[in-house]
């Protein structure tokens, strides 16, 4: 009769479960989402010269109204986009941005001066602005049902100096509808600031005077700072396109940064191999040591960015200090 090794079978079952779990994660199909009860565009604006001469900020106040709010994230189901006069997609992902929230809210697209020039965008032209569901989530896409398009006219175009005033009036509209206080003494309070900066990421740099709490960036004299990321950037190339793509997919699936996905992956790998080594040797020290070459290998491949490199460096320093205390000082003590 064969010797039944319970620990080995548990280990195999865990490994098999891990692999099956990974397959299930990456094989998840796209699910359809119910159409909203209504979809509208309240206001749309285009501002120019907000951060640099010639840049554009396209702003929209929308309402993707659901009576019963779906479980799916709005960012996976709806987006806003700037389209050409014929309603065709302008080239480049910077002309499109996912919505963060359902219901009545705001969103924007920022285009640098070079992006505006590259796309040959013309001020006060009749471009189209669209709030729409993703085709992968809604079939079919129907104007007025799960997609709303508006045509910009010259009255939608504003100079950057008018941005602050418009944002405050938009905040008042949202405050009245939401029942959430966004303005205090006529300026965006902490809550208002959180949502407006989320919708317009560089709003604080564009016009800080509309915030009740101002944040100023410290001026740092970097004359004496002589460092670059050339080495860590070069390490990233070591992992190759396949592993890099897998980490990107993993990060996208869990909606975390690639750094976090990488660290999680390395941690899982270390844990798996440590478990295998422990099962085979019953030696805790040996099992722990397996994690070291994995971490070093990850750092060499630029996985986890500079964080992983710093972690490995820290481990190396701590190991060197411990070695010094135990072996070198230990001999003197003896």
């Amino acid at each position, binding site marked *: 009769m064969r010797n039944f090794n319970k620990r080995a079978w548990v280990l195999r079952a865990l490994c098999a479960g891990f692999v099956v779990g990974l397959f299930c994660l990456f094989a998840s199909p796209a699910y359809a989402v119910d159409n909203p009860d209504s979809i509208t565009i309240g206001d749309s604006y285009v501002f120019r010269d907000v951060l640099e001469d010639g840049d554009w900020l396209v702003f929209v106040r929308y309402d993707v109204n659901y*009576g*019963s709010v779906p479980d799916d994230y709005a960012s996976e189901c709806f987006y806003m986009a700037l389209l050409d006069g014929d309603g065709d997609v302008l080239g480049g992902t910077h002309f499109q941005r996912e919505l963060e929230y359902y219901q009545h*809210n705001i969103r924007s697209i920022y285009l640098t001066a070079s992006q505006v020039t590259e796309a040959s965008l013309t001020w006060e032209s009749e471009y189209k602005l669209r709030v729409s569901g993703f085709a992968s989530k809604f079939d079919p896409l129907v104007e007025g049902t799960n997609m709303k398009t508006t045509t910009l006219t010259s009255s939608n175009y504003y100079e950057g100096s008018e941005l602050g005033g418009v944002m405050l009036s938009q905040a008042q509209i949202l405050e009245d509808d939401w029942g*959430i206080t966004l303005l205090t003494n006529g300026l965006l309070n902490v*809550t208002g600031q959180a*949502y407006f900066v989320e919708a317009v990421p560089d709003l604080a740099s564009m016009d800080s005077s509309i915030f009740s709490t101002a944040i100023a960036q410290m001026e740092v004299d970097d004359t004496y700072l002589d460092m670059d990321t050339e080495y860590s950037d070069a390490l990233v190339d070591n992992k190759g396109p396949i592993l890099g793509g897998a980490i990107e997919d993993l990060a996208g699936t869990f909606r975390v940064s690639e750094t976090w996905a990488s660290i999680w992956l390395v941690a899982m790998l270390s844990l798996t191999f440590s478990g295998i080594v422990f099962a085979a040797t019953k030696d805790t020290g040996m099992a722990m040591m397996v994690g070291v070459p994995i971490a070093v290998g990850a750092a060499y491949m630029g996985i986890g960015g500079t964080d992983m490199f710093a972690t490995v460096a820290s481990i190396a320093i701590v190991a060197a200090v411990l070695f010094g205390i135990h072996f070198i000082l230990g001999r003197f003590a003896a």
Partner: protein
Amino acid sequence: MGYTPISASSQNKRMPVDPRIVRRVQGSSRMMREQGSDFMGRWGGPTMYRKVAKMDARDRMAYMAIQDGFVERGDIAEATGMPLSEVDQAIASLKKEGEIVEEDKEVAQL
């Protein structure tokens, strides 16, 4: 300015904000200080807001009316502006989902 129960306000018929916005407010002590006694108070807190955001408008209006203390179906109909037949349907639906406890059900059927 008088206090308007959420069940009697127009906000109840259409959820004004994505529940994830409420989650963000809840996650910030400063935002909770700004909104805690106002928005959150009217909706019975962030957990209640997220819960009712999943209900359809009819059930939500009836549920919030019960939470606001309207016990008779006639009062619920008056507070929400719904006809009695819809109030009955909402109560039946809430019963089925287990969203109202037995005492509420009995009172709501008076």
